[in-house]
Structure formats: C-alpha cells, structure tokens
C-alpha cells in the first residue's frame, strides 16, 4: 500500500492505496464521492471525468497514486453550498439529461470547454466537437448542447 495525499474539492484528503487502484475507485469507495461515475471502464464514455489540476481527465484511466500531491475537483465540488453552479442550473433548465448517469461527466467536460474558451467565443459546432469524450445514451445530445451554450452565456462567454 502507498499513502497518498491530495486536494479534493479544496480539502486535503489522504488514504492508503494499492498501486493498481484507479483514481475513480479511490474517489468513490475510499472517499465516498460517488458523483463520479464509471460508465464503460474502457476510457470511452467520459462519465468518470474529473478535473486534475484544472483540466478534465478520465479518472478511470489514471492510477490513484498518480494523483498524489495534485488538485482534484469532482462534481461534488462544483456547486456552492445549496446553490447550483450556473452550468448545473443550465442542465436543469434545458433538461440536458434523461437518466442522468452521464451528467456529472458532461458537466465536468462542459466546465473544461468554458475554461478553454472563456476569453473567446463558443458556438454549437465547437461544443459538439469538444464533447467528443463524453457519451450519452439517452438524449441525442441536443439538450446537453443547449445546456452548455446557456451555461456558457450565463458565465459570461460570448455565444454565437
């Protein structure tokens, strides 16, 4: 076992892990942060997307030990208290989900898109292109794309 310490949603957390423990399993089973989902376990669906040092990555394709000393943000760290983040509110408003399983990963990827384009602009084609790493098996994506564009607008990104 290896002892790891990392910042998760702004709080210092530590735990003992086997080298083969995946980051997503550490988050879900050892820290109890079950908002991060495992959809495919083959690095394709993006339901396990978290932010590592501010950038979206798939936590099923990373070892927990690799996150030692790093900053991790999960879906649980997005809202402020009881108040939804503007992106979460936009998903609710636009009904950007049906079963909801992919939603945590979608929101984390959406926030990555905003981060990459905050001084720039966004349009529907860009959102669709940058959502390549996230699969939704219910919605056909229209509501999700609408939600990300609304969230972007409400976060001050120019939407054209």
């Amino acid at each position, binding site marked *: 076992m*290896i002892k790891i310490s990392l910042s998760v949603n702004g709080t210092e957390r530590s735990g003992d892990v*086997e*080298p*083969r423990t*995946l980051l997503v399993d550490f988050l879900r089973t050892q820290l109890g942060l079950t908002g991060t989902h495992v959809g495919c*376990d*083959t*690095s*394709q669906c*993006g339901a396990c*997307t978290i932010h*590592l040092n501010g*950038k*979206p*990555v*798939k936590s099923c*394709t*990373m*070892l927990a*030990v*690799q996150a030692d000393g790093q900053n991790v943000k999960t879906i649980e760290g997005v809202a402020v208290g009881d108040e939804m983040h503007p992106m979460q509110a936009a998903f609710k408003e636009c009904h950007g989900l049906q079963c909801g399983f992919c939603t945590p990963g979608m929101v984390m*990827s959406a926030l*990555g*898109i905003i981060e*990459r384009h905050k001084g720039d602009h966004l349009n529907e084609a860009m959102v669709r292109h*940058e959502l*390549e*790493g*996230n699969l939704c098996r219910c919605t056909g994506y229209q509501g999700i794309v609408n939600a990300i564009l609304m969230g972007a607008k409400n976060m001050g990104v120019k939407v054209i």
Partner: protein
Amino acid sequence: MHSFAYHRPKTIAEATSKRAADPDASYLAGGMTLIPTLKQRLANPTQVLDLSAITELKGVSVANGIVSVGAMTCHADVALSADVRKVLPALADLAGAIGDPQVRNRGTIGGSLANSDPSADYPAAVVGLGATIHTNTRQISGDDFFKGLFETALEPGELIVKVTLPIAKRAAYMKFANPASGYAVVGVMVADTAQGVRVAVTGAGACAFRQADMEAALAKSFTVAAIKDIVISADDLNADMHATAEYRAHLVGVMARRAVAAMA
C-alpha cells in the same frame, strides 16, 4: 489489473537505471494505452515507472527552424501552443484531433510514438515532417523509427526524451477518423520541406510509412491533379471490422488529395 509496484522517478537517469535493473518494469507516460492494457490484464509488469515527475521531459520550444517537443508533453499542450500554431499549424491541428479533450490532457507524444499503434496520429507527423527522435542514448531518424505493428527501433529500456520536428514550408494533415474512437482509419501528412516533398501515411499499414509515388509527383507539381491518378495498392494494408484493405488504399488517395487541397 494484476498488482505491480509503482515508482515515480525524478530524473531520466533514475528512470532508466530502474528499468535496466528490472526488464519486466514498464514506463508509464500518459497512460492512455498502458492503463487500459493493464485493466484488461494484457500486460503484467512487475513495476510501473511513472515518468510524470521528470520535468526535463516536458515542454514545447521553437528555435532555429525546429519545433522541439518533450516526450512527456501532452497533446493539448501541443495543440494549444501559440508558437506551434504559428510556425507549424499542421502539427497543432494533428495534436488537436487526437482522441478527445480528456485524452489530450493526459496522452503524450513520447508514449504515442513508443507504442507505435498503427492508427495513431503522431507517427504521420514524425515521418511526414522528417522528425528526429532523441532518446537517452542516441538520435533516431523518423524514417527509421517505426518497424512494424507496435514495433519501433527503441531498444529495451531506451527512453524517448524529446522529438525535434523541422518546420516545413507548408504542411497539412488529413485523417478519416473512426467516428467512435477518433483513431485514424487512415491519416496522411503531406509536407513541403527543405528536403523535398514528404507524404506519410498512418492507419493504413502496420506502421507509418512514406508514399514515394505521391512524393515524386508532388515534387514535380504540388497540385491535387498531380496525384489524382495514383493508385495505391491494397497489398499488406490493414483490414479489420472498420475498413477493408481496399477501402484503406482508397482513403490514402482521398486524404492525400484533401491535404494538398488544404494548402492550395
């Protein structure tokens, strides 16, 4: 996953000496191939040597007509580099079309090249631009690096340190991406370089290769018309559930023409 030991060396020397002491140890770069492989129990290393803490393996720089990319530089850092975008936009485009945003934040050029996946994008840049692979012991020409399916010129334990890519006069990369994975069913890099025209193909064969007929035709006339009648043989090309060898041969022509057209 089978169990393994984990180390995060701080220097190239520490990584290579640990690997030299244990032939069953495995370097871990971005992990976009190795970790799925471990999960499927298709690899069983005794220890994983995570290269992510070796700072000298990271970074992009442009000087003297050369783009230099550290082996542990992730695809997003190449795609979003303003310097690369300015001097060699085809390389930024290629890096920005690998996988998806999450993969581009983890996957590295060194990992991609050492793996030599037949459908990976970076091999087309290395062969197409006439790049040089710098390892801990020597320099290897891009033309000599890829040896076959998942096979390279690297010796056991040899570690890629950086890749230097000469800035082409003009270059473009076009790929027919697998719609599910983003991997190249076929990808073609066409580059007009100081050493002549180079046409590199990935996805179609066991590893990236140059297409001499197209290079000769484009050297005479750098136009779509110059290569439109070149027939690519399907012999020895890959065939799988995604595309037959004949279809891949056809796509080599289509992607090459699109690349030339993009530079017109």
